[in-house]
């Protein structure tokens, strides 16, 4: 969601509409929510989720730092500083969540492993090194608008199933989405396109992120399809 009064630039408005159309026409599944809706979600899945998330945080911090190095000007650097700060500030809460779920500290950043657990860290690393500014920013928009609603729905399902989870879990996964950050992300997409980035590639980047967010949930669900 963007702010009510926000209007993206003309190139980006088209991309946002096209992404919404692709998402509606060919939605990417969320294996963790599928389990929850089938009544088969267990605390072990949530432990896996936190384990995957710990690894993603490190890759995200590296990626946003790399992107600042590649695009050290307004408005791009400000966006990547803000999203890096978001991850950095959230990290202690995630570690507290991991401890509360009884994940041994020596397994932090190492478990679970395999292609699904490494999919999102891999993509964000690749994008940081190879993506255009519009690729990176529209990919981030896809990330923010897929991940946060997924977390919110997960908490609803956890509540409905009456799963016994520590309060640190809800503290980490509730809220988080920022309309202002979404607005800023789209401003950077427009900036990239106006300065020559290919909008078709930016759209492909966002859909690739959608697919990888799907794999992120699958890694937690243990359904590495």
């Amino acid at each position, binding site marked *: 969601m963007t702010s009510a009064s926000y209007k993206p630039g003309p190139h980006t408005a088209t991309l946002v509409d096209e992404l919404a159309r692709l998402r509606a026409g*060919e939605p990417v*599944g969320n*294996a963790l929510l*599928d*389990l929850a809706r*089938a009544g*088969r979600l*267990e605390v*072990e*899945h949530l*432990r*896996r989720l936190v*384990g995957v998330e710990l690894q993603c945080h*490190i*890759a995200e911090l*590296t990626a946003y730092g*790399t992107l600042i190095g590649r695009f050290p000007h307004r408005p791009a650097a400000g966006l990547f500083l803000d999203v890096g700060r978001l991850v950095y500030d959230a990290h202690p809460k995630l570690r507290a969540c991991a401890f509360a779920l*009884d*994940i*041994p500290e020596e*397994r932090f950043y*190492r*478990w*679970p*492993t*395999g*292609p*699904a657990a*490494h*999919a999102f*860290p*891999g*993509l964000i*690393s*690749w994008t*940081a*090194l*190879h993506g255009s500014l519009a690729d990176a920013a529209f990919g981030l928009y896809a990330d923010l608008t897929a991940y946060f609603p997924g977390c919110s729905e997960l908490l609803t399902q956890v509540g409905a199933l009456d799963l016994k989870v520590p309060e640190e879990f809800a503290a980490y996964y509730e809220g988080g989405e920022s309309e202002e950050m979404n607005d800023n992300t789209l401003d950077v997409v427009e900036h990239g396109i106006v300065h020559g980035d*290919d909008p*078709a*590639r930016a759209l*492909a*980047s966002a*859909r*690739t992120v959608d*697919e*990888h967010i*799907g*794999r992120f949930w*699958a890694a937690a*669900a*243990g*359904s*590495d*399809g």
Partner: protein
Amino acid sequence: MDVNSAERNVESLTGKLVELRRRNPIPNLFLERVKSDRFGREDLRALIRGEIRTAEAEMTVYALGTALHRHEVFQDLNTMAVDARSHLSSIRPLVGIDDESAENGAVGPDGFACPGFLSWAVLHCNRAELGLVMYADLESYGGGSREIADAMQVASTEVPEQIVRYYADGVPDGLSSKVLGLVQEGIDRGDDVSRAVRLARVMEECVGRYWQAAVAPERNAPERNAPEGNASEGDPR
């Protein structure tokens, strides 16, 4: 599988990797498709698109490896990647890939597994880990590609000679051994190798996904729902 501090040598690490391969082999689905003679131009196009995507990522990864670790093996690796990219430029038209279609289009996680994992590895691994990951990549990709070339030569489906030769050439002789020199150097400098084998195993699984991406639309893949791990996982408790 953790590697304890008493086993800090290259042979121990590669031995554990080989043992994992033996216990739990990773299928090469593209090879199986070629062997069963159920492949065509679409499969070759998907395969070559994956090669282009990966060769370009490798050029970045090996250049960054040079900058971060200043070891000569990255020069050899980059020469391999540049040569591959050059060969792929001449192969591309044979399967109907133009410049634009080589670069555009969303790529599913399996198609991104190798470029993504290598990009992650160069940014996050110490030199021993990165060396073992690259060793696993060279060994699993090189072996698989030579088998694919052999199968293409006896298949009734006609494959352009340049493509067969590309896969028959595989990985340059001696490169895997040189990469192990990087691993040894990392060990000698005190790199933590406790997760090296596990990461190398993930690399091999990613190569399996790489071949898989050339044969099947990923979203059609069957899903499992049990919270079980895969072959590269250890028990978290």
